């Protein structure tokens, strides 16, 4: 018998639901740059999910790699959208 | 074996002479004497020989030797009862030889001959129908096994008539003056052989001669079975004369018609194979 919820699992549930909420907000949002802000929320939540799923030092590395990678991606998308370097 | 190898070119050249003679007689001309082709080849062997300045030298010369070598090999395969697949492999290599002979001199006429020989690649596909049909019936592709099968069960000519017709057409498309001989039509001088003179031309003629013998002999062996040497030659002659009749009474098709005709034949054969497969 699987219990309906488990007290130790509450952080996982929170992360999962926040991630899903963020995804829904991204899909319904119209402006590209504001999507990126919600994407950031999703990254936080997914990083949390990754680390909470396997408590191991490698999972920390995986989480950080994921977070930095998606931040880089968001940065690149935003910069390109805005037209690259402003000066020079 | 050696005897056969020496005899084959002469026999083939003689056959080619007979071929010309029969065609001429049917068309109401006197025609050349039947040993004309032998004399022809001898004459070429002693003429001055050179290589065109624009030609790719090695290919120009090497391809002649390849042409002779493959058909000598084919003759060995037929005589020793080797694999039928190998024989047809050699038949397809002949296509490459024509292509090489045509392209190596750099002359536009020869090149057109070579390119046309590539166009008629569709004439090879009936061969696979032949192979498939024979394999389906006999369960083997070794010529010796096929001959043995016919000794036991009677000639394949009747049970495999469509395959026989396909092979007949294949041989026909390799005969001079036939309806499908687009590679040496007169509008491109001598087709792929235009630039090969002297001894090279003699070599090509010899390979043609051996080819004629091999194809006719393979036809008889595949669809009738083993015969004594004399009967074999008579059977080959009968087929040759029938081929000459066809050549004499049909016009030469233009390249596209020729390809279309061959495609139609392929479609019929494939349909036949499908029916055969369904029945089995």
């Amino acid at each position, binding site marked *: 018998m699987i219990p309906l919820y488990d007290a130790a699992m509450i952080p996982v549930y929170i992360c999962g639901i926040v991630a899903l909420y963020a995804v829904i907000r991204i899909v319904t949002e119209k402006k590209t740059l504001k999507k990126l802000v919600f994407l950031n929320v999703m990254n936080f939540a997914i990083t949390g999910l990754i680390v909470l799923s*396997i408590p*191991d*030092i*490698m*999972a920390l590395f995986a989480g950080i790699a994921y977070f930095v990678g998606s931040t880089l991606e968001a940065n690149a998308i935003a910069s390109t959208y805005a037209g690259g370097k402003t000066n020079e | 074996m050696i005897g056969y190898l020496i005899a084959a070119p002469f026999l083939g050249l003689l056959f080619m002479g007979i071929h010309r003679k029969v065609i001429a007689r049917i068309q109401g001309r006197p025609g050349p004497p039947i040993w004309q082709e032998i004399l022809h080849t001898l004459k070429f062997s002693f003429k001055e020989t050179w290589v065109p300045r624009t030609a790719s030298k090695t290919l120009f010369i090497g391809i002649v030797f390849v042409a002779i070598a493959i058909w000598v090999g084919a003759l060995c395969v037929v005589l020793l009862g080797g694999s039928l697949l190998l024989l047809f492999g050699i038949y397809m290599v002949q296509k490459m030889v024509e292509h090489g002979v045509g392209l190596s001199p750099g002359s536009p006429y020869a090149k057109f001959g070579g390119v046309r020989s590539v166009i008629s690649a569709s004439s090879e596909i009936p061969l696979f129908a032949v192979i498939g049909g024979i394999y389906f019936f006999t369960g083997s592709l070794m010529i010796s096994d096929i001959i043995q099968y016919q000794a036991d069960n009677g000639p394949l000519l009747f049970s495999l008539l469509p395959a026989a017709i396909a092979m007949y057409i294949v041989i026909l498309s390799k005969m001079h003056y036939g309806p499908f001989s687009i590679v040496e039509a007169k509008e491109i001088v001598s087709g792929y052989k235009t630039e090969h003179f002297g001894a090279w031309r003699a070599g090509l003629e010899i390979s043609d001669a051996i080819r004629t013998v091999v194809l006719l002999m393979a036809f008889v062996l595949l669809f009738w079975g083993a015969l004594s040497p004399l009967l074999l030659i008579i059977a080959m002659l009968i087929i040759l004369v029938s081929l000459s009749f066809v050549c004499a009474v049909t016009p030469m098709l233009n390249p596209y018609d020729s390809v279309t005709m061959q495609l139609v034949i392929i479609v019929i054969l494939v349909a036949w194979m499908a029916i055969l497969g369904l029945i089995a």
Partner: protein
Amino acid sequence: MAKVENLIAIYSVIVVVIAALAIVSLIVSPIGYEDTQLYPKHINTSSPLNPYDRGGVPFGTTEVVAQYPQNSPYLGYVTAYLTPLSALMAISNQYLGTTIVSHPGGIIDEILYNTRGLDTIVETSILFTAFAIASFLYRREEE
């Protein structure tokens, strides 16, 4: 057939027809999965070499199901060996299996370099040829 551009369309039609026939024949009579495969996998999630732990003795033989076991007396030698670096990774962490096995010595190396080495030769030759074409054309354009 008149233009070379249409060739792709013709070829596609042929393949689509054959693939459709294949699907129909699969649904009518499934071909089934042969259970005795070469080099089968067995997953042992508690091992540090996770998806690729095939057991065996280092510098000894490992039981792998090869096509011709009689053909290569050294079959399975590479599989169980760990270089010092990979041994270090194996004792330090549970979740580095792929890295360890991809490091020299491991079942994939065994298959790629030993039993199916010719495949790898052909594969690198293909890469080499294609690069020769690309770099030749590129450099000719540069000049």
